[in-house]
């Protein structure tokens, strides 16, 4: 195979040969190559097929702006689609393949789309939705649904592996005085100046090497610069992209740690997601060369001029033999000289007629000429050129490569992330960064400076600006004026040749043509934001780095306006794509969110508990004996509690210490029921409302002393209640002398429930008289000692409806308490019970939890009207009476039985009237359980009008998700022991 690699050029290491596979064939490259340079060296022209038309596409650039060479790297679970071949470093064993083609990029069956182009023009999707003209045939979604699967398959790029990502990613943080983005001449000058002025500097470079666009120069050697930077103590981060700027000088960066290594150490992450906080940011992100729109400007062999300079001087690849360069500016002539010195036959078409330029005269310059059409399909055969004033068929040049330079666009993206709109510069035909009040300074060609000395000067000025803004100096400085070419640029975005119907591309990656922009204009999508969305111009993963300005200029021309009047779309992060893996970092799998365990977590597991997540907490779910299923187990546990005794870990409940002289008044204001008369040594169940009158949470508060309470909240609302109490005390009731402290972690809690609970607990106490019915009546509270002199708090509180106690000890004593209680409970054939049994017991009693108190329910809805005091005002007391909460048809808490007691049902079932089974029905079932006590399934839920309205009516439970339906009976939510005789026992 012919190679395009030439001797004596490039900075690759020719002693290190790397093998790689492209589309299942073996090739060789060198250390220092990118995949793109290695493919070019191996004379591979077609590397992909285009998005819609499946046209053959080659390599357009040598950097992040690449919009043609998107390839898939790796295989199986490490398959990474849509990687730019131009930034992928070559490594030994790299596997890559072309995308969006079947069977392959050289021969793609879907290439037929190229000839059906008129059906796939801009707005194709929207129009298909509308039906096919002229009769709007197939209007509606049916036709869309039918075609969608074909369209999805045909359009688009690479596909994801669909397998779990085997790599690890990391989040990292750093801070510094100054972060410099870009290591071109401006960035390096800025970094050195700052380090010499004793600033702590980080220099960021997306490439593997520092130097920026100097890497395209034939005599550039970065080793000296690197030494100098390192000696000054500057932290250099290569292979790191500053993808976004955020508030307060925070920079988001992606470091590609192992993407260039064949067999990375498994202990290091693939990528690192950096958040760097700086005091000042200097952006020297360079500029991006634009192409020119004309017919067939996408045929493989078309490239930017600067890219071919990179391939020649950095990689030793001469990208063409007979090269035509089309330009409107001076930047191409150095490259033209070098390409012809390297042995290519070069012709320059310069759209300008008047220009002075010094060259080595080894190539022809055609002043006042532009290209208007490329002949060829899979490669360039020849180029049609014309005088620039009027485009007429005049001449055809045989060539194998067309290099384009339509001007340069400063990379204003990062500043755009800060909401700073760029301003149009007529002289340089580009957008320039505007000033910002934030500590961000733009240097180098990102400010439209086209020569190296200006860039260096701007870097030093940039650092002076930074020092001044940080108050570290008061030095005058000035930035060089934008520009730097001898001859002015002549705006040239499109060469229009009316006689041809060939496609002329604005955005290569999304196949947006000049005709698409015109169509958008004709159909009224003239705002840039509409143009973008209608044509998808600039919406591919290159975000229009090359094509956006061309699209804007076309729209400006159609509107008879200037480009700045048309405006530009806002660039948003990320500058280049960031993998989802890097965003999530280590927060995957079990580390997705924090895990909370109770102090007796291990004790529970050691005693056979199966665990379940409740919020962040791991709680015992059920304690199966041999071969027991979940339902066997919880039914046994719940019946054991009703028969003898059970022990349940309730530590996850929120616990708040409320202390101070205003405590009683405080509780009286936050709870809907009265607390002013609660005696010391008593607890009370309370309900808190939100300001708007809806139930926020419920729990108990224990009066331990005159001015001291112990509050429990539900597990899920603990943090919210704590914040709420703090907010009230710090913002609204600042005269109340109350202190609230979260003590959730400090106390371990257990519920001892069942007719034998008093005996069990008694055996565990030093003083057996403390919890007699007289000394500790229902809702009584006491502080005493467990055997072994362990201080504890006991309240006679029941969630299960049985005689029950909640016992709290300091967390360190949790296991001792569990051992003691369990040893004694076993004597009464007691059990350990988990959340499932707890749920069964409370549903039988009609006690509500988060499943019912879902943020839409009022006290009255929950059947707890008695809990709303009429003798005082409290949070939510005014708003709970507002009209909409007092409607007669509100859904009220009820119990449900299946009419046929052998049937089951599920939470989520919609309750309907018999002859009207549709929509949201008249209610819903929120919690269900098998009731061991009643011997059939029961449920809690809500129904419009409540028990009174429906107690004698047969209703229907519709469960369309599970394809189930059953007849229901509405009953009182207090399904067993409605008078509560057991708890008072």
């Amino acid at each position, binding site marked *: 195979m012919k190679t395009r690699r030439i001797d004596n050029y490039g900075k690759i290491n020719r002693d290190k040969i790397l093998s790689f596979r492209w589309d299942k064939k073996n090739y060789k490259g060198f250390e220092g190559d990118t995949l793109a340079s290695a493919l070019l060296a191996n004379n591979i022209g077609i590397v992909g097929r285009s998005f819609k038309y499946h046209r053959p596409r080659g390599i357009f650039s040598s950097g992040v702006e690449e919009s043609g060479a998107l390839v898939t790297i790796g295989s199986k679970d490490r398959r990474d689609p849509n990687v730019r071949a131009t930034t992928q470093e070559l490594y030994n064993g790299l596997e890559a393949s072309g995308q969006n083609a079947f069977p392959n990029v050289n021969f793609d069956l879907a290439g037929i789309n190229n000839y059906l182009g008129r059906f796939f023009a801009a707005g194709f999707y929207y129009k298909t939705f509308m039906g096919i003209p002229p009769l709007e045939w197939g209007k509606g979604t049916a036709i869309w649904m039918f075609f969608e699967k074909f369209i999805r398959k045909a359009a688009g790029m690479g596909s994801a592996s669909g397998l779990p990502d085997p790599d690890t990613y990391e989040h990292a943080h750093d801070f510094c005085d100054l972060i410099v983005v870009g290591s071109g001449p401006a960035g390096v000058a800025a970094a050195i100046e700052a380090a010499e002025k004793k600033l702590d500097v980080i220099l960021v470079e997306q490439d593997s090497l520092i130097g920026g666009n100097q890497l395209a120069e034939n005599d550039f050697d970065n080793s000296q610069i690197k030494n100098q930077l390192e000696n000054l103590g500057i932290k250099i981060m290569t292979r790191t992209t500053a993808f976004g700027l*955020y*508030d*307060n000088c*925070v920079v988001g960066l992606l470091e590609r740690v192992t993407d260039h290594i064949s067999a990375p150490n498994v202990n290091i992450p693939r990528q690192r997601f950096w*958040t760097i*906080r700086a005091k000042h940011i200097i952006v020297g992100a360079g500029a991006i060369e634009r192409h020119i729109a004309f017919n067939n400007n996408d045929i493989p062999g078309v490239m930017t001029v600067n890219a071919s300079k990179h391939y020649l001087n950095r990689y030793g690849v001469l990208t063409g033999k007979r090269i035509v360069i089309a330009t409107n500016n001076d930047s191409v002539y150095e490259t033209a000289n070098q390409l012809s010195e390297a042995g290519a036959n070069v012709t320059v078409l310069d759209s300008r007629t008047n220009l002075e330029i010094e060259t080595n005269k080894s190539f022809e310059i055609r002043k006042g000429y532009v290209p208007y059409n490329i002949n060829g399909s899979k490669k360039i055969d020849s180029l049609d050129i014309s005088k620039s004033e009027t485009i007429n068929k005049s001449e055809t040049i045989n060539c194998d490569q067309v290099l384009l330079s339509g001007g340069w666009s400063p990379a204003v993206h990062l500043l755009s992330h800060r*909401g700073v709109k760029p301003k149009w510069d007529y002289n340089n035909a580009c957008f320039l960064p505007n000033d910002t*009040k934030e500590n961000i300074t733009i240097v180098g060609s990102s400010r439209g400076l086209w020569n190296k000395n200006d860039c260096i000067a701007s870097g030093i000025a940039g650092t002076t600006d930074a020092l001044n803004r940080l108050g570290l100096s008061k030095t005058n400085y000035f930035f060089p004026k934008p520009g730097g070419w001898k001859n002015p640029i002549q705006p040239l975005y499109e060469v229009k040749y009316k006689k041809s119907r060939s496609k002329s591309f604005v955005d290569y990656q999304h196949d947006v043509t000049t005709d698409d922009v015109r169509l958008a204009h004709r159909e009224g999508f003239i705002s840039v934001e509409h143009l973008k969305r209608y044509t998808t111009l600039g919406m591919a993963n290159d975000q229009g780095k090359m094509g956006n300005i061309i699209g804007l200029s076309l729209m400006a021309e159609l509107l008879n306006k200037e480009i700045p009047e048309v405006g530009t779309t806002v660039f948003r992060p990320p500058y280049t794509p960031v993998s989802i893996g890097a965003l999530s970092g280590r927060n995957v799998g079990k580390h997705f969110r924090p895990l909370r365990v109770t102090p007796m977590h291990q004790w529970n597991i050691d005693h056979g508990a199966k665990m379940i997540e409740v919020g962040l907490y791991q709680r015992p779910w059920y304690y199966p004996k041999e071969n027991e299923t979940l339902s066997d187990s919880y039914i046994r546990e719940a019946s054991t509690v009703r028969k003898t005794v059970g022990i349940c870990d309730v530590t996850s409940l929120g616990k708040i210490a409320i202390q101070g002289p205003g405590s009683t008044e405080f509780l009286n*204001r936050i709870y809907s029921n009265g607390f002013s008369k609660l005696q010391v040594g008593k607890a009370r169940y309370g309900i808190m409302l939100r*300001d*708007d009158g809806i139930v926020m949470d419920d729990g108990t508060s224990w009066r331990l002393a005159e001015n001291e309470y112990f509050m429990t909240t539900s597990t899920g609302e603990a*943090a919210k209640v704590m*914040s709420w109490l*703090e*907010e009230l*005390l*710090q*913002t*609204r009731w*600042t005269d109340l002398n109350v202190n609230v402290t979260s003590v959730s972690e400090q106390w371990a809690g257990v519920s001892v429930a069942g007719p034998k609970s008093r005996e069990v607990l008694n055996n565990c106490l030093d003083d057996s008289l403390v919890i007699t019915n007289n000394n500790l009546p229902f809702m009584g509270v006491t502080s005493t000692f467990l055997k072994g002199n362990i201080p504890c708090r006991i309240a006679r509180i029941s969630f299960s409806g049985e005689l029950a106690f909640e016992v709290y000890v300091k967390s360190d004593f949790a296991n001792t308490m569990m051992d003691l209680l369990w040893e004694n409970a076993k004597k009464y054939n007691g059990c350990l019970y988990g959340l499932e049994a707890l749920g069964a017991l409370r549903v039988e009693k009609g006690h509500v939890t988060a499943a019912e108190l879902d943020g839409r329910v009022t006290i009255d809805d929950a059947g707890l009207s008695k809990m709303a005091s009429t003798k005082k*005002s*409290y*949070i939510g*007391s*005014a*708003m709970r*009476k*507002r009209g909409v909460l007092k409607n007669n048809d509100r859904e009220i808490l009820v119990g449900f039985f299946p009419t046929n007691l052998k049937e089951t049902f599920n939470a989520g079932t919609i309750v309907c009237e018999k002859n009207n089974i549709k929509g949201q029905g008249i209610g819903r079932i929120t919690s269900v359980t098998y009731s061991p006590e009643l011997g059939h399934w029961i449920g809690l839920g809500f129904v419009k009008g409540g028990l009174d309205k429906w107690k004698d009516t047969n209703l229907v439970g519709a469960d369309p998700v599970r394809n189930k339906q059953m007849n229901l009976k509405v009953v009182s939510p207090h399904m067993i022991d409605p008078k509560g005789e057991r708890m008072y026992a």
Partner: protein
Amino acid sequence: MIRINCPYCGERDHSEFSYGGDATINYPSLDASEKDWTEAIFFRKNIKGFQFETWHHSNGCRMWLVVERSTVTHEIKSVKPCHPDLQKVVENNK
């Protein structure tokens, strides 16, 4: 990333804080009318520019703060404790 200069802890990332709401609302007394409460709870200005808002240093000192922040630029002009007594302490310690 917004950074808030907590009077107690110093400058911290906003990820340590939870947003509260409008800090300028005078909540009516508990026995006030439904109308007054409706006004206080549901009606909010949509300010373009600086506004006073409450933030809770929930992963820090647990102090509720009044932050004067621009809704356009996120610039923060002032931060002080909501509680007037704490405000005084902060002032005296300056």
